[in-house]
């Protein structure tokens, strides 16, 4: 299974993702600059955190127009794992691959700390190595992480079990229903504000993010 880590202008967590997969999990990974237009030969695609295009207009709004996006959409349609953390999550919502939107934190502050999450759904290719209801700790670092969806969409996401991670002790940004991470309806695209790639070694403070990458490695493809 080969992973692509996309590098947008302004990405700054691309190396974290690469190292989490390569050094820690021993996976086959390569960087793919967003000016490329093909993901041939890759089985999964990872969108890193950062500030693509300086967050101009809206976080993630401009990255959607890069050359690589059609190939990412194709991967999503083919049922391959597509993962976005932080700015990657924002890009996936802006690209329409995930429902809802990420808006400015209610506090108006950039929040950088470790938060407790509950694994709300472990029946996904991204979370099968977790227990349902398990409490994990992952770092967050964002100013635009308040998840919003209109009431109808929110209900649909909840009913379909698309909410995968919830903030459990405190809601750091005002996200509706304490939502920290969601999948698409099919379950092969995951976006989350927390950074699992920053919690994969004891030296980094925590290893709670490791199971996410191991879960993906367990599943090459989601059946349609």
């Amino acid at each position, binding site marked *: 299974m080969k992973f692509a880590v996309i590098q947008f202008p302004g990405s700054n967590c691309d190396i974290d993702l690469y190292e989490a997969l390569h050094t820690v999990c021993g996976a086959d990974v390569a960087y793919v600059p967003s000016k490329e237009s093909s993901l041939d030969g890759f089985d999964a695609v990872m969108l890193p955190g950062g500030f693509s295009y300086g967050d101009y207009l809206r976080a993630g709004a401009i990255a959607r127009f890069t050359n690589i996006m059609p190939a990412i959409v194709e991967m999503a349609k083919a049922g391959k794992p597509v993962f976005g953390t932080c700015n990657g999550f924002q890009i996936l919502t802006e690209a329409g691959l995930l429902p809802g*939107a990420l808006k*400015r934190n209610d506090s*108006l502050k950039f929040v950088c700390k470790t938060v407790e999450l509950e694994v709300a759904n472990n029946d996904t290719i991204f979370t099968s190595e977790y227990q349902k209801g398990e409490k994990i700790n992952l770092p967050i670092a964002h100013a635009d992480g308040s998840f919003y969806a*209109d009431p109808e*969409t929110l209900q649909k996401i909840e009913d379909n079990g698309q909410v995968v991670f919830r903030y459990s002790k405190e809601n750091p940004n005002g996200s509706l229903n304490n939502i920290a991470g969601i999948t698409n309806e099919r379950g092969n695209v995951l976006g989350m504000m927390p950074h699992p790639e920053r919690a994969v070694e004891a030296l980094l403070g925590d290893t709670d993010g490791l199971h996410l990458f191991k879960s993906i490695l367990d599943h090459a493809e989601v059946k349609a």
Partner: protein
Amino acid sequence: MTTVRIYVTYKQSVFDPQGEAITNSIHSLGHDEVKGVKVGKFFDVTIEEGDKLVAETVKEISEGLLVNFNMETYSYKILEEK
């Protein structure tokens, strides 16, 4: 050439934390008569009118890029035509 000002704001139902903070600051100024502030942004867009109507261009660029319809809405007015 037509210059159009496109206004983008949060939908009514969406909480606007910046507007809330500004409202509170205005109250600190002593203006309790101010009951609410909504923050938005605007884009002055210069369009050369050809086969496509200005209104169509505005609609397409708003829906395609300037507005995230999950949380935002827009309106516009024509500033200048020459």
